């Protein structure tokens, strides 16, 4: 029977010849991602239930990132609980302060993500890893506890939606804009319970970083996962990075696999997009919203805090001054070092930005750039819900890094194409 890439991954993980959308399976988990907000409660639950083992200490990756370094006493306690446990269980891949980074940027960069595998993480944007032809989804703390202890979780096989990306990206338009357009079209629950599969010629021209921006935001359309099949770019990225060098399995959707929804996005026709408050689906072309005054610019996060994003922002900020407070957050220590080595840090400094250590920080309204009531922030993050970056009376505008940088220069929503 014809299967989608997602069904094939699950068939393997469930040890069955085939599965189809709607089936309930127990699947073996290949990797579990753990951070400082959702894992400490999972650890406590395991303790409370007298379960004192981890299924495989090599297959759990721990990176405290949300409040990193701890912002207050309570978050320090969370870090301490996580630290004590990770050491006690001898977790092989435990990234401590100095090597810890925003989880969804760090795990692929450090070579933990392998095609064909089933990956879960205690974070909704775990869907990011689908850019590597893996099934990957976010779970809560209880599921996380079960996954840590047993290496098995139940899943309902999701139906798939297919998004074909054609054309090629015009100057000033990035994969972020493609995804904001997809979410604008189908809404924040348009992909509820579904796997969002991305195919098409436009993807070929996108780097792995750019592809991760797309799968990262699958959850913003309600998707269970986002997935892109392996190609040469994927292999090139993985070569030399993978921690586990054994062969991985590459799956592809059968040509006659079933999709519950199909859509085509002509990338050539897109403009830079801005998602207005308070939903990621409120995307508008910049030409319709340019000129609105901003108070802050935030460049970072698991969506757009990788080196490619900082290069784009720096190319616009070079030799200019920001008109509003601008916070640059390299997503991982490696990105941070690259930023310094490539001279981007100097550009940001000269332009008047502040550079933070790798952290989730203000992306989720944690710290390092909280908004006051009435303030507006142009941000490269993925979510603009009420109160997301601070006061419930503040506003977040989502955009690509070029739009964010151009807006920082002008102090208002600006068209990055005037700078490129």
């Amino acid at each position: 029977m014809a299967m989608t890439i997602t069904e094939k991954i699950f068939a393997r993980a469930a040890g069955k010849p085939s599965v189809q959308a709607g089936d309930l399976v127990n699947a073996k988990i290949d990797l579990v991602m753990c951070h400082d907000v959702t894992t400490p409660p999972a650890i406590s639950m395991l303790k409370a239930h007298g379960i004192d083992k981890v299924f495989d200490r090599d297959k759990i990756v721990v990176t405290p990132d949300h409040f990193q370094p701890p912002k207050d006493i309570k978050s320090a306690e969370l870090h301490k609980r996580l630290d004590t446990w990770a050491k006690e269980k001898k977790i092989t891949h435990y990234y401590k302060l100095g090597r810890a980074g925003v989880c969804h940027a760090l795990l692929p960069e450090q070579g933990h993500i392998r095609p064909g595998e089933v990956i879960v993480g205690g974070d909704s944007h775990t869907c990011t890893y689908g850019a590597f032809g893996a099934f990957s989804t976010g779970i809560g703390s209880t599921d996380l506890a079960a996954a840590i202890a047993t290496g098995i979780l139940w899943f309902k096989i999701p139906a798939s939606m297919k998004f074909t990306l054609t054309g090629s990206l015009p100057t000033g338009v990035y994969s972020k804009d493609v995804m904001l357009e997809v979410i604008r079209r189908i809404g924040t629950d348009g992909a509820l319970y579904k796997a969002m599969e991305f195919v098409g010629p436009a993807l070929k021209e996108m780097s792995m970083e750019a592809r991760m921006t797309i799968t990262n935001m699958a959850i913003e359309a309600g998707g269970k996962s986002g997935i892109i099949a392996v190609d040469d770019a994927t292999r090139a990225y993985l070569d030399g990075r993978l921690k586990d060098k054994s062969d991985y399995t590459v799956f592809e959707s059968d040509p006659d696999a079933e999709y519950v929804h199909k859509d085509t996005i002509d990338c050539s026709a897109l403009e830079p997009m801005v998602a207005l408050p308070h939903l990621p689906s409120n995307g508008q072309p910049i030409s319709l919203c340019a000129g609105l005054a901003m108070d802050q610019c935030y460049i970072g996060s698991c969506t757009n805090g990788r080196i490619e994003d900082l290069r784009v922002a720096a190319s616009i900020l070079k030799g200019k001054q920001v008109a509003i407070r601008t916070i640059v957050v390299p997503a991982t220590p490696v990105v941070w070092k690259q930023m310094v080595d490539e001279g981007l840090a100097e550009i940001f400094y000269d332009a008047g930005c502040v550079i933070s250590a790798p952290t989730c920080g203000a992306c989720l309204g944690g710290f390092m750039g909280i908004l006051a009531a009435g303030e507006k922030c142009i941000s490269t993050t993925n979510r603009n819900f009420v109160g997301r970056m601070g006061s419930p009376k503040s506003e977040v505008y989502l955009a690509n890094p070029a739009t964010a940088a151009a807006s920082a220069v002008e102090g208002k929503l600006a068209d990055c194409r005037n700078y490129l």
Partner: protein
Amino acid sequence: MAKAHVYQRDHVNTDEIIPARYLNTDDAADLAKHCMEDLDTEFVKKVQPGDVIVCGDDFGCGSSREHAVWAIQGAKVGAVIAQSFARIFYRNCINCGFYPIELHGALEKINDGDELEIDYQGGTIANTTQGTTIAFTPLPDFAIEIVNDGGLLEHIKRQKEKGKGQNDR
């Protein structure tokens, strides 16, 4: 008797249910103090044990934070009735032993302040204010088992004790 707190809204998200500024703890009692704060600052003052939250589509969208469910449980909310739920939140509810009630047309069938009686076994809600009985689609059997066991971990433990192996189904 449970009172309905109706929010005529779709996409009530986890940041509204429990803002990230309170995620530096996982203590249910602490979280409960801020339950629904960014949607309705009065909520914790007016909610009584057993009361019901009623919303439109896509309730609980956004983050995977189970803290959202703990805040609701901590505030002693009896049930959440929504026209539809976001996936992770829905799964988290079941895993915490909290029954998410999916009810199409919920916002038309229940008004703010209505008194409700929920029969989980029978899959019906008696709206005693309006004198109506409303049927909802019950959870699948395996999910009911998890809820009845008090959540996923308790369920796994009991399955093990029964010798069924981890999570076998």
